[in-house]
């Protein structure tokens, strides 16, 4: 039995073993288990995600390349060295196996992982002797249920779709990226890891389009009326009926006509609104909520959710469903949650309801239910990040079974010399589902005084406020993820990773996303010389075709041939224009390097700019003033020799010198005052993790 991860192997072995505890073995650092179920001996062996990857068939670092092969991941990628022992152990153990069970996660990736392990590590003949176990949570109940209803064959549609996706993405990614890298190398002799791909390109194009709108935005003036009423000694802000006044004279006229006048209540309207409970959590919604409330990036949320899934605390997280199937034992989950003090009262309250009917969203995923707690309780104290996501999942689960909340809105119309103002208030009458989900709701109550129609209202003040329109907001990781989802590009499993790649390539930066010169350059070049690569239609078409493999309407061969036919003319065009493309990329990289090495204005001479320089003698780096070369300023300071250094854009609160951020691989970034040798801030001059001490 092959599982996707070592933790899953242990959980599955524990759940299925009928006598005592599973017998644990260890070989080359890989732990596997022998269990007995229905009198049969089963050996449960883990993979560690993908053990095989797509690689180039044949040699040569060139393009176009359309011939692919599957190779062990440790050969394709040095960072996957740990996969070697897994392959070795699985391969050896498979020789003793009579039959095989694929017990990886039930999705395209899981099916693909098991398929490759069987085909390449266990031998082609294992494929016809393999069964598929399907489950959505790693609880004992679901594992046993999955085992008792094994599919007699592997899930070939998912496997074919998975293979195709990997191969097409590889073909697009490698060819387009090589086209850019080689263009740059030919022109400048410089190597830089550049990439684009089937999904990466259109995503970056969306971000670039927004950036252009922001950078060429011209604000337009408008005016608002700020009126404050004095009622029973308390001040209340009145809203003018016209929220934005576009002509200044008109706004001034309102002020003149209302100033020193007394108004009167002309109408009071109350309205009760029913707010339905939220829909169940699919992965996109979980990532979006986690970003809103915890500022977790989508990839971080996915990582945490996967840990919680492996701990059997929540269901499979890469679910696209917002509809609970009747097979979920809601009562059992609630009963179990009632053992956690924090949720106890809420769970009991729901259990006392006559009928538990969840809200249902629009999205459907037949393979998995929405993300929900399994009912298993944490065995130890959860890490803070994990606790937050667990809490979000639990509370959302409780909320979808809650009653609607009822809000009363009050709108009071006040007329002042013929001008209409509003006073708005609202309060919750029935909390309903909101009491379960309260930490994740932003709602304010405004209680208004008791007023009667005709009642006089005195103005405390009235003034004109100058305002300007604002540019469209910058994207953030959450809004990019939602955009990709709405545009149907990428999959729920890959979107977060693609956003991370855009950051790691240096195309975008910051939590409020800014395009870098390199990102712009890549987009400008691609849109000028091969706009098809950025076309969302092309990506969407391919996505559609790949989905058709899952439903048996297209074959893998057909889709790959079609993809190659679409890519070939694009690559021909890129080849023809290598020189101009390389030139553009080279200029962008030079500008990026200049920008990155500039720290700020020299605090000593106030003229030169501080840049990262290298000593000719020792080759060590330091920060120095650009006026050093003209002998006008000799300011220089030593800096750490390891890690990336960039300006934080802020000055030290103690001495006013610029602050820099140091990023080292696998370490938390930290901020440092460049005047650290003399900064009066003492211990506080270094602020670890970017947080002020």
């Amino acid at each position, binding site marked *: 039995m092959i599982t996707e991860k070592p933790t899953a192997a242990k959980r599955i072995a524990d759940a299925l073993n009928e006598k005592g505890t599973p017998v644990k073995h260890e070989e080359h650092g890989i732990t596997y288990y022998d269990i007995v179920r229905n009198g049969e001996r089963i050996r449960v062996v883990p993979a560690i995600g993908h053990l095989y990857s797509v690689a180039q068939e044949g040699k040569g670092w060139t393009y176009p390349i359309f011939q692919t092969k599957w190779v062990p991941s440790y050969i394709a990628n040095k960072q996957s060295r740990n996969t070697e022992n897994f392959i070795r152990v699985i391969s050896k153990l498979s020789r003793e196996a009579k039959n095989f069970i694929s017990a990886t996660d039930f999705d395209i990736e899981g099916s693909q992982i098991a398929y490759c392990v069987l085909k390449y590590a266990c031998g082609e003949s294992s494929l016809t002797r393999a069964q598929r176990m399907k489950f959505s949570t790693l609880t004992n109940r679901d594992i046993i249920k999955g085992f008792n209803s094994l599919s007699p064959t592997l899930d070939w549609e998912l496997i074919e779709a998975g293979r195709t996706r990997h191969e097409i993405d590889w073909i697009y990614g490698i060819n387009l990226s090589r086209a850019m890298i080689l263009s740059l190398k030919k022109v400048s002799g410089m190597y830089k890891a550049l990439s684009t791909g089937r999904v990466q390109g259109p995503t970056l194009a969306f971000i670039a389009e927004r950036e252009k709108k922001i*950078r*060429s935005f011209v604000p*337009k003036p408008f005016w608002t009326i700020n009126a404050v009423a004095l009622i029973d000694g308390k001040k209340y802000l009145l809203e003018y009926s016209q929220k934005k006044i576009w*002509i*200044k004279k008109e706004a001034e006229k309102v002020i003149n006509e209302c100033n020193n006048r007394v108004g009167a209540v002309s109408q009071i309207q109350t309205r009760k609104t029913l707010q339905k409970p939220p829909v169940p959590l699919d992965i996109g919604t979980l990532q979006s909520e986690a970003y809103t409330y915890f500022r977790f990036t989508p990839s971080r949320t996915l990582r945490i959710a996967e840990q919680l899934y492996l701990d059997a605390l929540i269901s499979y997280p890469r679910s696209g469903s917002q509809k609970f199937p009747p097979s979920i034992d809601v009562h059992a989950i609630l009963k179990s949650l009632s053992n956690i003090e924090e949720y106890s009262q809420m769970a009991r309250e729901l259990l006392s309801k006559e009928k538990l009917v969840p809200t249902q969203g629009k999205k459907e995923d037949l393979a998995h239910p929405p993300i929900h707690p399994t009912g298993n309780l944490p065995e130890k104290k959860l890490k803070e990040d994990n606790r937050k996501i667990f809490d979000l999942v639990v509370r959302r689960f409780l909320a979808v079974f809650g009653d609607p909340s009822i809000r009363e809105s009050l709108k009071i119309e006040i007329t002042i010399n013929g001008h209409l103002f509003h006073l708005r208030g609202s309060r919750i009458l029935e909390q309903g589902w909101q009491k379960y989900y309260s930490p994740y709701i932003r709602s304010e109550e405004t209680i208004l005084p008791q007023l009667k129609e005709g009642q006089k209202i005195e103005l405390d003040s009235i003034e004109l406020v100058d305002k300007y329109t604002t*540019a469209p907001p910058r994207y953030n990781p959450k809004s990019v993820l939602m955009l990709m989802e709405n545009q149907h590009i990428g999959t729920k499993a890959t979107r977060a990773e693609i956003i991370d790649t855009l950051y790691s390539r240096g195309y975008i930066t910051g939590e409020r996303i800014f395009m870098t010169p390199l990102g712009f350059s890549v987009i400008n070049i691609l849109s000028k010389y091969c706009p098809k690569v950025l076309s969302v239609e092309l990506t969407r078409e391919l996505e559609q075709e790949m989905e058709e493999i899952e439903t048996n309407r297209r074959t893998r061969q057909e889709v790959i041939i079609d993809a190659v036919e679409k890519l070939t003319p694009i690559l021909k065009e890129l080849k023809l224009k290598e020189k101009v493309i390389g030139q553009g990329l080279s200029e962008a990289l030079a500008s990026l390097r200049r920008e990155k090495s500039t720290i700020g204005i020299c605090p000593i001479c106030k003229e030169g700019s501080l840049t990262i320089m290298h000593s000719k003698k020792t080759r060590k780096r330091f920060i120095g003033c650009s006026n050093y070369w003209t002998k006008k300023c000799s300011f220089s300071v030593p800096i750490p020799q390891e890690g990336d250094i960039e300006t934080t854009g802020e000055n030290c609160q103690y001495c006013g010198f610029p602050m820099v951020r140091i990023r080292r691989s696998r370490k938390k970034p930290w901020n440092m005052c460049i005047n650290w040798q003399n900064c009066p801030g003492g211990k506080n001059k270094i602020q670890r993790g970017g947080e002020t001490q």
Partner: protein
Amino acid sequence: MNCIICGVNTNEGSNYCENHLSAYINLKEAYNEWKKAMDITWQEYLKKVIENENTGEWVRELAIHLLNENLE
């Protein structure tokens, strides 16, 4: 030709690159709306646009150039 603001290659016959040209078009169009909204001269308008924190980077660079060179 090169853009007189950023030095990037421009389309033939244009003083501005694609980005600064789009900023110029926006700046000219927005002036009509500013004039409708209030009494304002071109120079005053440019000053206000430069000072405004919501102004896009390319527009600001262009407005500074137009103001310094006394250009329309």
